[in-house]
């Protein structure tokens, strides 16, 4: 998708995108300070008041032993105060000395922050110093000390904190609360997806199917609702197919299961894998059964190309060349047959060759490749000599044909064919 030239120039010249400086006005941090005048003192470094900073005391020992080998000091933590009780909010803003004391995580109890205003301030300051650990710590406290309604409401306008909270709930697997949060925020699609995700935890296939059924009515976008509906329908069918086939396999009466034992259950496989499976084991079934490829194709609105690729791969794997042939044969109203394919014949040949199709089968499709150069290249690659020969004949290129004579086997049918052509007086060679 290209933007028009004018658009693009506009974009570059628009005043919105002015050069960025370090003291950018719309920087989150500076903005936060706008709320500050309500407070007695300046910003306090929230990163300091909960935990020892970064490298802990134990490192100091190591570092000092290393220093003897001319190491720089890497310790950053000042000594921790012994006495650590009785902080008020204002003492948190006292400046240097206060900060030091706040480093001990046990020392500063968040319980001191009782009013909503204090709590929110704490949160905003934590966000201001960009330390996710501290932000989450404050959120854990707010979660314990505020009602859901109030917390959710306040988080709505605090995107950074909100994302931390969502991540925390996700990691600690507090599904229910997270769903409530999404609901409160009106994020219905997130809510739906989260609920849908639950199906991954359900191992029993019948329970999973029932759960997926209940997911269909979740507030997905219309497009996604369709996908989820498909997911449910697919599993429902897989359960039926699996039961029938397992029985057939253990019964030992159905030849194909004896010849090609199933390697895995079809349950929970993607749609296309299922289609492949059905093309492999249930190809000839009439549209009436759940396992018939035609039925699957129709139910799930599988694109023509997709269907062909899958059916071709499955039948080629079984070396059912007759089915392959039938797949591409169409009849016109006069009853003449011709080969038609929604995917290029070079691709068809590629798939066939990967399934070790014999030359007789391959050449049929290689011969249908329109582009002459590609056709010759493929024919040579797959050793479809007759295609090469007839293409050279069509090109009336005597030299190439002569050259190719050296590449086919002595006394072979191909050699005879070449000789026959070379001695044919009716062909007007161009060289």
């Amino acid at each position, binding site marked *: *998708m290209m933007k028009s030239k004018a658009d693009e120039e506009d974009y570059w010249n628009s005043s*919105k995108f002015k050069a960025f400086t370090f003291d950018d006005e719309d920087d989150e941090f500076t903005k936060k300070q706008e709320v500050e005048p309500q407070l007695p003192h300046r910003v306090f470094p929230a990163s300091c008041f909960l935990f020892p900073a970064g490298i802990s005391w134990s*490192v100091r020992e190591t570092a000092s032993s290393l220093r003897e080998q001319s190491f*720089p000091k890497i310790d*950053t933590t000042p000594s921790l105060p012994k006495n650590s009780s009785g902080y008020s909010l204002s003492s948190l803003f006292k400046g240097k000395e206060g900060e030091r004391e706040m480093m001990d995580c046990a020392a500063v109890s968040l319980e001191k922050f009782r009013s909503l205003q204090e709590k929110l301030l704490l949160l905003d300051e934590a966000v201001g110093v960009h*330390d*996710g650990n501290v932000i*989450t710590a404050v959120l854990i406290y707010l979660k314990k000390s505020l009602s859901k309604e109030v917390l959710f409401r306040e988080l709505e306008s605090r995107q950074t904190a909100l994302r931390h909270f969502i991540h925390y709930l996700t990691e600690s697997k507090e599904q229910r609360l997270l769903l409530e949060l999404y609901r409160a925020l009106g994020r219905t699609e997130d809510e739906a997806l989260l609920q849908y995700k639950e199906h991954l935890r359900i191992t029993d296939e019948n329970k999973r199917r029932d759960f997926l059924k209940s997911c269909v009515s979740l507030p997905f976008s219309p497009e996604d609702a369709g996908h989820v509906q498909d997911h449910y329908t697919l599993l429902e069918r897989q359960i039926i197919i699996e039961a029938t086939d397992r029985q057939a396999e253990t019964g030992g009466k159905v030849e194909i299961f004896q010849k090609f034992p199933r390697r895995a259950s079809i349950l929970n*496989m993607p749609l296309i894998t299922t289609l492949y499976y059905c093309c492999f084991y249930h190809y000839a079934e009439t549209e009436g059964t759940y396992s018939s490829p035609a039925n699957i194709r129709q139910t799930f609105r599988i694109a023509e190309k997709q269907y062909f690729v899958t059916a071709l*791969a499955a039948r080629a794997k079984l070396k059912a060349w007759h089915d392959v042939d039938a797949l591409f044969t169409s009849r016109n109203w006069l009853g003449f047959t011709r080969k038609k394919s929604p995917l290029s014949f070079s691709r068809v040949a590629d798939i066939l060759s990967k399934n070790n199709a014999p030359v007789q089968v391959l050449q049929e499709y290689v011969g249908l490749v329109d582009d002459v150069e590609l056709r010759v290249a493929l024919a040579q690659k797959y050793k479809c000599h007759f295609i090469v020969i007839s293409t050279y004949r069509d090109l009336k290129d005597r030299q190439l044909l002569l050259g190719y004579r050296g590449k086919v086997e002595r006394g072979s049918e191909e050699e005879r064919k070449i000789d026959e052509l070379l001695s044919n007086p009716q062909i007007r060679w161009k060289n």
Partner: protein
Amino acid sequence: MAHSARRDSPELPDFSVLKRLARDQLIYLLEQLPGKKDLFIEADLMSPLDRIANVSTLKQHEVDKLYKVEYKPVVSTSDQLCFLIRPRIQTVKWVYVVNADKAAGKFKRYKIIFTPQKFYACETVLEEQGIFGDVSTDEWAFYLLPLDEDIINLELPEFFRDNFLEGDQRWVRTGGSALHLFHSIYGPFSKVYGIGRCSKMVYESWREQVKEGEQKARQAEVGTVFLIDRDVDFVTPLCSQVVYEGLVDDIFRIKCGCVEFGPDVTSSDKSIKVMLNSQDKVFNEIRNEHFSNVFGFLSQKARNLQTAYDKRRGMDIKQMKTFVSEELKGLKQEHRLLSLHIGASESMMKKKTKQDFQELLKTEHSLLEGFEIRECISFIEEHINRQVSYLKLCPLSLYFFTGLLPKDYRSLKAQYLQSYGVDHLLTFANLKQLGLLVEQQPGETLTVMESKMGKLVNDKTAGKLTDAFSSLAKKSNFRALSRRLSLVPKSDEEYDLRVPRDMAYIFSGAYIPLSCKLIEQVLERDGWTVYNGINHLFQLAILTMSFIASDAQRIILVMFLGGCTFSEISALRFLGRERGYKFIVLTTAITNSARLIEAMLDNHV
């Protein structure tokens, strides 16, 4: 192939100090729990730990048995258990699960060592489970793992997802601490540039920590520093890599500087693990090369080797003796490495031919240039239809990223879900959230949308929205940007991959990685205006500036927040050779397209 580096290239600092520091800290922590103890190690910490302390070191400090954390019940008879883990809620919850001893009335000592730091949320888990205090906790500030002479890794792949997808800033301070540690050993820095929002936060966190500590005046070993956010450039990690080291990573996955070559490479029935770094002389010469040059180089090398071997013909006993004692060992070693890399190259060749690699590259290049989009769509469709592993479907994301029509989007998404499972709805939601999936809004320019939305929300969120819009702008304007910065060289000229003329060689001359281009531009123009508009777009800022001119100025630290690819490292090495710089890459993790997409997956419990 051996590129002649500029003579005035400065020397890189020695990073082995970092390993020693980390090891000593760990030993100190282990000694805090005197006596015999069993050590449980988080799976993804095994390799990093292995790089700095081997089993015998651990044994020396009374570690009895070693276990991998596997989320299964623990069978340990030791009465002291030590857990070395990442600060993850899930792991801490597991520690509780094993702690059934308390109920059984057994008295044991437990210690959790979080690395690189602990999080309050993890301690809350202990508190909630009623074992806070029963379990002692500590931090192992193991931030910097030197993987090579110019690569230092934080080994924190989750940085990417947590920060850019979830919007959780828990690793910002970690980034700051890592930088602080680096600075205190190799600084002081004279200039720091930041590219991106997270960079600025990390910078601030670092400054805060510098204020807290003190810095002795010392000789700087690194001068200029770049901090760069991964989300500034998603395109580069989504492209298939074609430089040797990148290709090896894409195919075999290099883990913590080590790769496992299977039987198809070793042409035996065994797999072997190989360290890939500058110590491997053969690897060192090909790692930055475009793959098409590698075979020629290796066969030349093989011929030279043969000649060297042949020398022994016609030697007398004495000469032979010297040959065996002095040269043979080196030759044998080279021989071994050579056959290994030849094996790897052949195996990669085979795999790539099977996957229609040429076509894949062609599609990627077309997407980058914005040509023949229909063909690209049908290529992608065909891959989806054939259920080619979705991790190899990065052109798809690339296509999403460079912007697509709603109609195409719907159809591709439907086919994708049919091929790989409907649960990838979750993946799509994540890609969208991250900004990797950009649906074009037909007929609406950004400004119109912005003012519309602006009216709907109150002031507080408005700033946030502007942020979101500028990142949207950044993404859907990839093409405009690409033209501005000439990221896609003109395709009508022949590009000689053997004699690269710019960093585009790492993508066969088709694309210069945006991340590296920005760095080049800043260095060239010494910071200020790169291009009007672009500074803001990337929140490009000069964060610190002092005017100490020193040799260290030419040693440049590039810190990637959210990971970088081997291709980018190769590009920077190239830039360094051309301009007489030395780059040190400090990254939160090594990434590539598959890892990037994997980080977006949610279709598991």
